[in-house]
């Protein structure tokens, strides 16, 4: 696999979260995270419309250098302007974006939300723990599973390099 653009190119996570406190926990957690020597860059938008604008490079997100395509989307469900499920549906219905893993990260543990999210092809559904140390643990679990182990056509070169180094 030779899809290695540059060692220093960051891994991009798009966080769609309107709650500043939750966004701050996620931001702090990924600030020090490295994947195969690549820093993680967290892009944060605060509502569903911004999320779609970012992903479709509309409005202020037109510059691909400043709004790079994410490797992973962390998506809250209850969002202003455009609902999280609507964002999910739109992303998964778009041939160019459907490949990006979308992890629902929400306070809702309601069965109906979980079923709907999987029905709209969420890759995974996570409930935010109320407890801060647990929240941090979950962030680590997300980083470890989705950035280290999960393979993706956009970045399998990097993961391959990581696995080789570990072996």
């Amino acid at each position, binding site marked *: 696999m030779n899809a290695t653009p540059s060692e220093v190119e960051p891994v991009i996570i798009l966080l769609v979260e309107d709650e500043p406190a939750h966004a701050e926990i996620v931001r702090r957690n990924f600030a020090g995270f490295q994947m195969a020597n690549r820093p993680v860059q967290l892009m944060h938008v605060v509502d569903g419309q911004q999320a779609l604008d970012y992903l479709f490079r509309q409005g202020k997100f037109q510059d691909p250098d400043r709004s790079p395509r994410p490797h992973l989307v962390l998506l809250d469900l209850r969002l202003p302007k455009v609902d999280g499920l609507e964002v999910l549906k739109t992303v998964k219905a778009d041939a160019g974006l459907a*490949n990006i893993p979308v992890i629902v990260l929400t306070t809702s*543990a309601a069965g109906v939300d979980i079923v709907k999210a*999987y029905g709209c092809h969420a890759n995974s*559904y*996570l409930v935010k723990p109320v407890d801060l140390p647990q929240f941090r643990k979950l962030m680590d679990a997300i980083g470890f*599973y989705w950035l280290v182990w999960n393979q*993706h056509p956009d970045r*399998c070169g990097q993961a391959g390099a990581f696995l080789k180094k570990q072996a």
Partner: protein
Amino acid sequence: MKTTGMKGEPAVILLVEDDPAHAEIVRRNFVNFRMANKLMHVSDGQQALDYLFRRGEFQDPDKSPQPNLVLLDLRLPKVDGMEVLTTIKADASLAHIPVVVLTTSAAEVDMAKAYGNHANSYLVKPVDFPQFLKLMDALGYYWLVWNQFPY
């Protein structure tokens, strides 16, 4: 509605794997995992579909409970793994079950196809045995401890 997760409800995992050595690694790992999970193992794509649609020897829901998670190899006898994935994700009663592809293929074309067919995650089996065990740990920890299932 019940969910698995932090509270540790036992989960049913359907492993679709024709390589006995790989199946054994997965089995041992899930048996050792802290929760009383049930690992159901079928060895080809036809059996996987029969299990999921409760046909033939898999008709009894007590003996063949609907899985919370499917671990799916791609290169399978009888019915190909990609075909199994497509069938699961096209069926309204099964589409919500997370399917994790677990394969030796690191080909980008397979990854793109799998995600295109709504695989929830794609994992490449490491050739190295200790790495394979590490992957199993990561898989169990993420999907059985943190991920929320619909039922």
